[in-house]
């Protein structure tokens, strides 16, 4: 199925050998969107590669920024003020809502609904993107986090608008679920297709909703408890079949958890500086050393590994992209399924080519 097949999310090619309808061998081919992200990272200053992190996983730029900022702060030992931590959590959870809604929409589109769930998903996504735009200036390429805090302080009415959105999100989710989760056709098509065993998932280094759908309890927000996640109480949903239906349901349940986190965060956000006063913008020379900062992105564990040698440019700049790792098991899930299922399984893995190819 060629690079611009209508069902792959971006330029991604699958060489599928068929026996009748069932798949015998599947070789994913990607690299069409390789932009040499990591080499650029080595030739520019730490600050300059921040806007490039938006282009990694172009659906959730806020979490990419946060992961990179976290890594650099770990490298340079940069403290982060209280309010910035809260704003970062709020933005990360909003991005999670955004990403999971998008995924549900694309998955239904692969299943064959002629666009209806996708349009509902995009209607909600637009609202979140408008919030990002009024905060950071651009809908998807926010470039909003800095080392030691955030660039702009969200105003009171921005926070009110965001709170009003999260309260309304529960209603949208209920409507979305009544349309889809109970639908017999969807259940018939997705339950049992693309089954992933927990052992294989753990060995292949799968992270994020795909891993939790197989039943493995591994959520960085609980494991690392980075930022101030330890202050919020939320639950981590786990599936037990590891098939396409589970991945869809896990993401929907995670959205509900994110809404809870957001509501708690809005209630408890303190006033105060948005960025650490001592934070240096230009001439930022971290001491030599290495650091690996990772957060629980909507697609899985997104991590940045930096080695600095005291100069303004990092010596080594490595991105651990969840989509790339999750893609490695695509063949194991597709064996024995029909062509129509391969398309759905790819959809449920939720890959974004910008992140896969870097």
């Amino acid at each position, binding site marked *: 199925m060629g690079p611009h097949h209508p069902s792959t999310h971006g330029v991604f090619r699958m060489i599928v050998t068929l026996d009748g309808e069932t798949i015998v061998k599947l070789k994913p081919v990607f690299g069409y969107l390789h932009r040499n992200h990591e080499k650029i990272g080595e030739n520019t200053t730490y600050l300059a590669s921040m806007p490039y992190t938006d282009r990694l996983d172009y659906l959730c730029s806020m979490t990419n920024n946060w992961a990179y900022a976290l890594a650099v702060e770990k490298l340079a030992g940069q403290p982060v003020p209280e309010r910035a931590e809260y704003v970062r959590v709020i933005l990360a959870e909003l991005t999670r809502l955004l990403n999971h809604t998008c995924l549900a929409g694309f998955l239904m589109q692969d299943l064959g609904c002629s666009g*209806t769930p996708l349009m509902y998903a995009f209607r909600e996504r637009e609202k979140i993107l408008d919030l990002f735009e009024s905060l950071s200036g651009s809908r998807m390429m926010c470039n909003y986090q800095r080392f030691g805090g955030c660039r702009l302080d969200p105003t009171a009415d921005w926070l009110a608008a965001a709170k009003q959105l999260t309260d309304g999100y529960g209603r949208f989710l209920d409507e979305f679920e009544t349309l889809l989760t*109970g639908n017999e056709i969807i259940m018939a098509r997705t339950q049992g297709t693309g089954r992933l065993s927990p052992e294989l998932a753990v060995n292949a280094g799968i992270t994020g909703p795909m891993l939790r759908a197989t039943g493995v309890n591994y959520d960085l927000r609980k494991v690392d408890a980075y930022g101030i996640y330890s202050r919020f109480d939320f*639950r981590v949903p786990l599936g*037990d079949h590891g098939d396409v239906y589970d991945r869809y349901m896990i993401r929907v349940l995670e959205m509900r958890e994110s809404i809870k986190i957001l509501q708690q965060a809005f209630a408890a956000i303190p006033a105060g500086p948005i960025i650490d006063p001592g934070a240096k913008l230009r001439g930022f020379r971290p001491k030599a050393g290495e650091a690996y900062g990772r957060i629980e992105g909507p697609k899985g564990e997104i991590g940045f590994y930096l080695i600095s040698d005291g100069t303004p440019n990092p010596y080594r700049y490595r991105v651990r992209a969840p989509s790339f790792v999750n893609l490695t098991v695509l063949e194991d899930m597709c064996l024995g399924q029909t062509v129509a299922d391969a398309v759905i399984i790819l959809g449920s893995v939720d890959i974004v080519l910008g992140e896969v190819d870097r």
Partner: protein
Amino acid sequence: MSVVVVATSASEWTALRVVDSLALVATATDRFLECAPVMLRDAVTGLLPDPWRWIANGLFAIVAIFAVFGLLFAFLTLAERKILGRVQNRPGPNRAPTPTFPFAKFLGKIRTYGLAQPFADGVKALTKEDIVPDGADKVLHFLAPVALLAFATLTLVVIPFGRNLVALQLDAAVLYFFAAGAATELAVFMAGWASRNKYSLLAAMRALAQLISYELPLLLSWVPVVMIAGSLSTVAIVEAQAGWKFGFIPHWHVLTPWGFAGFVIFMVAALAESNRSPFDLPEAESELIAGHLTEYSGFKYAFFFMAEYFGMCALSGMAVTLFLGGWRAPLPFLEFIPSYAWFGAKLLALILGFMWIRATFPRLRIDQLTRFSWKFLVPLALINLGNTVVWALMSGGSPALALARWPVCAAIIVVPFVWLGRAQSASYAPRTYRYAA
């Protein structure tokens, strides 16, 4: 409402049975609107000598059907995209400008809320370059859309649009309808085979498997109607649904348990037969690009599109005739509205239902599709046959028996539905999820 001027003309070859149309007019209620079309036609054909009158009748009918259903097709495509849009919270096409002629610049400025869209599509389809793959055998490539459209139009001939507006009054009309319907498979095969590429042949095979496996439930679902109505001719079936019970419940077949079950099976099978919504496997975008239509472009593609809509209109027209009491008004005092208006309203209601389903459901996989037909629809249709027999037997006796037959027949059809439904959905169940500590 679409005024259907359709001639009543006896089947040409059996001269004996020419039903004198003038006689029919006298019996019908003589409101002007009701029999305007027939009188108009008689006025025209009256001038011609006898043998030519029959040809004039035929031509009249053909012209009327093509005119009405052609326009209906055009505006149905627009309605489909509008409804799909509105369901998805967007306006749907409204940007097609009215044609601007050099001398009438202002024409282009009129905001036509999308009404000019079908004509724009038509022009686009006409002007699109018509690609024929070099390997394909030209004859079949050209013949496929023509054949498909021909069979689809043939089925329209036998549906009674109004009180005495039926193009061809046949004794075995329903059988004729499904004979013409069954021939569409041939055309689909030709299309798949003629475009000479692997994908479209695979899709043609899938389409045929689907058409064949859904033809049986389609046929089985109208047998009860014929058993109760006692005749195969559509006009007689509509006749059988005349009259009202207790003054306001019409005798429509759909209001009886077996009738409702038959109607549901008929509609599901009709959905599959015209390749729409949950069963639109041949044109499954995500798998085979456009199924057996990949190699067609320009006007031939529009032909396929038109044939699909004609098929949909024909099937829902037949559903209206069989189950919803053809052109009968639902309530006695609503009789003054002309009969073809009622038929049109019911037809549009059904087609809007088609579109509504298209906007909501995802697609079934090929094996689920055929399993659904063989394991669920066919047994249900057979049970429905038994159900009608019980209904007919119990209807003879005392009123108590008449009352008792409602729950009995309802039970006969609902219990297997639930049991088969459970068997059908054994492979999946709504799941509950646990949360980590």
